[in-house]
């Protein structure tokens, strides 16, 4: 007798009907929708995280309307205003609540504009990675065989390398290939491409493993029975059933993507200093840390940490809320 795999075991126990579970399962699924909302309401820290995330999103989205000045417009800047400390320190200036950097950009305005870039890169690369990963994962899981082997082998190899390294390599190679032209315009796309490409594996693996489970379920057999086209089965039947974990990964990856962007910018290969993101601001400020101008680094640093922490908290909550076993 061949070794009985886990899948067969569960199938068999289900078939045999584990009486108590049947009732519990339907109870949980029927209450799931409302339970997500309930668990949100119950967790104060999650509500706080949601509010903070919303505020930062709002600030970033409407930065041109809220910010006291436009730091990306050289006409607005004056070197006389450079390196002014925050308003409560000695020598502070009421025009610049949080002080200015070496080029006379107000830290507060730059923060609003900078988080705009950070979030844009974060979202764009998460979407890019998700679309790529979901499609490949669905394909690998549903089609199986050689397609699966090739896709997952690539994924395995890539997974051995940390995302940041992949992003650095792609970034470096792309800039080599582009020959350093148009750095300012290309930087955004290069970043989105390199971060997105370094994160697709997680989606692909998750979607593939859920697809492998879903594909053997009988509703997929029922769809195959009537001769539905495989692509229709994948999109209509399988995809909606594998999206739960994807949502969790996407949230947590948003935080990771923002960190990665900040890290690349800090390392000097991301967003150029003329239109700084949060990471670029920290890089600029790092040079002034020893001479006492701490605010150039610290405010973007705190902003970054709060943003990522809030998004992570939302991701953590979402994962627990979608996983009924943890409750």
């Amino acid at each position, binding site marked *: *007798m061949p*070794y009985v795999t886990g899948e067969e075991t569960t199938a068999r126990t289900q078939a045999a009907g584990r009486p108590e579970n049947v009732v519990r399962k339907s109870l949980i699924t029927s209450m799931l929708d409302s339970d997500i909302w309930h668990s949100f309401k119950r967790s104060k820290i999650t509500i706080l995280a949601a509010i903070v995330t919303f505020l930062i999103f709002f600030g970033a989205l409407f930065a041109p309307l809220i910010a006291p000045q436009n730091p990306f417009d050289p006409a607005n800047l004056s070197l006389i205003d450079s390196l002014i400390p925050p308003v409560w320190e000695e020598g502070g200036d009421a025009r610049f609540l949080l002080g200015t950097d070496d080029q006379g950009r107000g830290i507060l305005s730059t923060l609003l504009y900078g988080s705009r870039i950070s979030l844009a890169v974060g979202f764009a690369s998460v979407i890019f990675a998700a679309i790529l990963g979901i499609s490949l994962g669905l394909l690998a899981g549903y089609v199986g065989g050689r397609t699966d082997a090739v896709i997952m082998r690539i994924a395995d*190899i890539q*997974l*051995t*390398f*940390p995302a*940041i*390294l992949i992003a*650095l*390599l792609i*970034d*470096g*190679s792309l*800039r*080599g*290939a582009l*020959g*350093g032209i148009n750095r300012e315009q290309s930087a955004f796309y290069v970043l989105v491409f390199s971060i997105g490409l370094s994160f697709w594996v997680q989606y692909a693996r998750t979607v593939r493993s859920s697809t492998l489970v879903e594909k053997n379920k009988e509703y997929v057999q029922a769809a195959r029975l009537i001769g539905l086209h495989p692509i229709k089965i994948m999109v209509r039947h399988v995809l909606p059933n594998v999206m739960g974990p994807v949502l969790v990964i996407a949230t947590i990856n948003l*935080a990771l993507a923002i*960190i990665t962007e*900040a*890290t690349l910018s*800090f*390392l*000097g*290969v991301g967003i150029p200093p003329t239109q700084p993101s949060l*990471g670029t601001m*920290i890089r600029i400020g*790092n040079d002034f*840390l*020893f001479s006492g101008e*701490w605010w150039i*680094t*610290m405010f973007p*640093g705190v902003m*970054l*940490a709060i943003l*990522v*922490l809030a998004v*992570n*908290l939302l991701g*953590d909550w979402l994962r627990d809320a979608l996983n009924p*076993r*943890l409750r």
Partner: protein
Amino acid sequence: MPRCSGGACHFSMLAFVIQRLFQSALVMLIVALIAFVMFTFIGDPVDQMVGLETTLEEREQLREQLGLKDPVPIQFINYIGRAIQGDFGISYQFKRPVATMIGERLPATLELSMVSALFALIAGIPMGVYTALKRDSFISKIFLTVSLVGISLPTFLIGILLIFVFAVQLQWLPSFGRGQTVDLGWWTTGLLTSSGIKALIMPAITLGLFQMTLIMRLVRSEMLEVLRTDYIKFARARGLRDRAIHFGHALKNTLVPVITITGLQLGAIIAFAIITETVFSWPGMGLLFLQAVQDVDIPIMSAYLLMIAFLFVVINLIVDLLYVFVDPRIRITGGET
């Protein structure tokens, strides 16, 4: 140790090891291909190596010398041949052999990575076990909060904060460099001098903190998963002591998946060293690589890629062997009746 009847068990283990070695070789080959493609097609090596005053003829001659006129597959084979002999070409920027440059900087990176990895494991695993077993205790909540902050703070920011507090404000620890090193001939170490150790503290914490939180969270979630299994319930139903259930049954089962991912994390440490080395101006491979990325110094980039891939492959191989040692389901197949 289990008793295997006949040679079946040795055979399956040997087959497993051979299969893994084969896979590792395949990974190295693919990475070499990527490195080669970068090396050959991104930017023109000749343009990078010569000055503007070099004539076209001289350039052609150099091209010939470098074997750039050979068919691409031959170039690839030559590239691999050279790489195996430790020849990664000449840096565009520094005009020195890449192998020598990496060799000089390898000890710094490895020393930093090892100390950080040890720190991450020694702190991470017990914290993970504790938070899984005492889910609702006050200390668990503190650990979990700290871990969330640890995951949310980018590595470079942790480094900057540490520098700001301990180097700028308190002036206890140095903010850059390796301190005094001792040259052992084949290796330079900072672990033998007090200034070397002092210089290591902040970079090691910076690099290890993120991995520590990851390991802790991983151990916690795996352990919670194991504690829900039927065999743990059955062990409880047999009335065994909590200690025997938690540290005998549950911990061992937890460590099986943790070993794999921890292996990957140790690899990640070497790569994340790039950031830490930049923040602390630590004279390691990462710093070299980063400068290469900024200057598009392709030979260094591709050599670093190969180097890292090699280290990862070795780590993964060790992890796989450990896995075999821990999990009898891989070690012994068959024999079912």
